[in-house]
């Protein structure tokens, strides 16, 4: 995608079926999750996922600003997904572009689907995601970080929210695309799973897939989410077992 009229397309899949970084099609990049990476926030987490570095912080439940957004029967969940100007190859203009605003919206809706918002009427739960270094899959890394941060903040939820993107690379369905695969691949399908119910609360797709490929991608993504789920739980266990490890 985004490759129309572009010049060189790298070889994304070797004859042996290995990917540009040597991974198998169903293999995740390495993931490190640190719960409680910040001091001021009510909850926080730092995620290093492949070459992605994402920090998330949660504030609240707290007073709603602006006030007219307040809801009498539940908390509202507000999310700001932002990419730092230096997080990509070519400097990005600071502030929320339309892509960031759309991602912020779907992430807020994903979390509001799992948070027990009725327990905190007239308040706001604010989720901040800062992408510090980007290499494809930043919204999924952001969701994983924010989810651990929400748990770290003690916000009651149905479950943690593991997330991963599945894509299509040289005709093959592959888990957890990295930048080159995302730029030159044929499809990208990010999702976030509620492990307990097996349902998806975030799902987007761009590119092209047949219905069989799509079915395969969904199943691959769900199993990817389940292994990320284990890492998220371990990060929270580590947090309570061994004090705070500050990121970086």
């Amino acid at each position, binding site marked *: *995608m985004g490759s*129309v*009229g*572009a010049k060189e397309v790298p070889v994304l899949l070797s004859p042996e079926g290995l990917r540009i970084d040597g991974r198998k099609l169903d293999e995740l990049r390495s993931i490190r999750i640190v719960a409680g990476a910040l001091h001021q926030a009510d909850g926080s987490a730092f995620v290093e996922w492949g070459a992605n570095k994402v920090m998330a912080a949660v504030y609240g439940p707290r007073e709603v600003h602006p006030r007219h957004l307040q809801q*009498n*029967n539940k908390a509202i969940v507000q999310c700001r997904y932002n990419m730092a100007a230096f997080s990509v190859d070519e400097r990005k203009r600071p502030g929320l572009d*339309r*892509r960031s*605003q*759309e991602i*912020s*919206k*779907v992430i807020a*809706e994903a979390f*509001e*689907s799992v948070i027990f918002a009725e327990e905190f009427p007239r308040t706001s739960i604010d989720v901040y995601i800062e992408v510090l270094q980007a290499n494809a899959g930043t919204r999924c890394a952001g969701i994983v970080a924010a989810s651990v941060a929400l748990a770290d903040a003690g916000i009651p939820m149905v479950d943690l929210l593991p997330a991963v993107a599945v894509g299509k690379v040289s005709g093959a369905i592959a888990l957890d695309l990295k930048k080159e695969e995302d730029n030159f691949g044929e*499809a990208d*399908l990010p999702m976030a799973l*509620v492990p307990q*119910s*097996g*349902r*998806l*609360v*975030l*799902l*987007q*797709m*761009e*590119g*092209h*897939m*047949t*219905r069989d490929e*799509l*079915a395969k991608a*969904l*199943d691959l993504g*769900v199993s990817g989410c389940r292994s990320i789920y284990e890492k998220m739980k371990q990060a929270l266990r580590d947090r309570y077992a061994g004090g705070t490890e500050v990121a970086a």
Partner: protein
Amino acid sequence: MSDEVTAEILTTHLLDLAAHGKRLDGRGIDEYRPVSIEPGFVSTADGSALARIGSTAVLCGIKLEPGKPFPDTPNAGVLTTNAELVPLSNSMFEPGPPHPRAIEVSRVIDRAIRAAETIDLTKLCVTPGEKSWVCYTDVHVLDHSGNLIDAGMLAALGALTHATMPNRRFGIADADAPLDVQHFPVECTFVRLGETIVVDPSFEEEQGAQGRITIATDESGRVVAMQKGLIGAFSPDDVKAVVERAFAHGDRLRAIARQGGSSA
């Protein structure tokens, strides 16, 4: 407060109906409202179409202007899609900078147009690296009675299929030519009401929904875009089922967008 109470009563009613396979306006769970397209609605545009789904009305206008290709795609034209939820279309919408809701609608339509390769962008290139056509697709929501994504996409596809490249106006060629459309994406949106998933949600159904999901398909049997929205969840099996339903509706919607006219 009274708004909240009314909304809650309405939602309960919608859920009760859905549990029995019924809907507020008497439709079946897999039934669209009447769909119609009126191409050429605006003569000042290079292509336009007014799409209606029930009482939802969305107008799309295309403007083509010469511009510069992006440095990383010197041989391709530029495509931009924007959706305006103007305040006249619903009491929810206020003047001001675009609401995330509007951004989502435009980006989901943009994704389908782009991923389906609706327009061969290399054909919009005039001089590589220097001059190319910029195709502005502006979606203007006039009456928001639910399902803006599907209506907006139909309007956009209708406008693109009936658009003309204004070569003469900009001195690029001696004759105007039809814009070459090579694929025909349509979006198909569903909402969850309890355990029932209904197609083409009305405004009230969107308000009471526990999750919304949009599937964009093209004429060659490909899924080209998806978007889950609102608060709620879908199982992978739910997704696979709505993909089949989206394909089943797709060809009819495509035919209406391409030929104009309406479905009863």
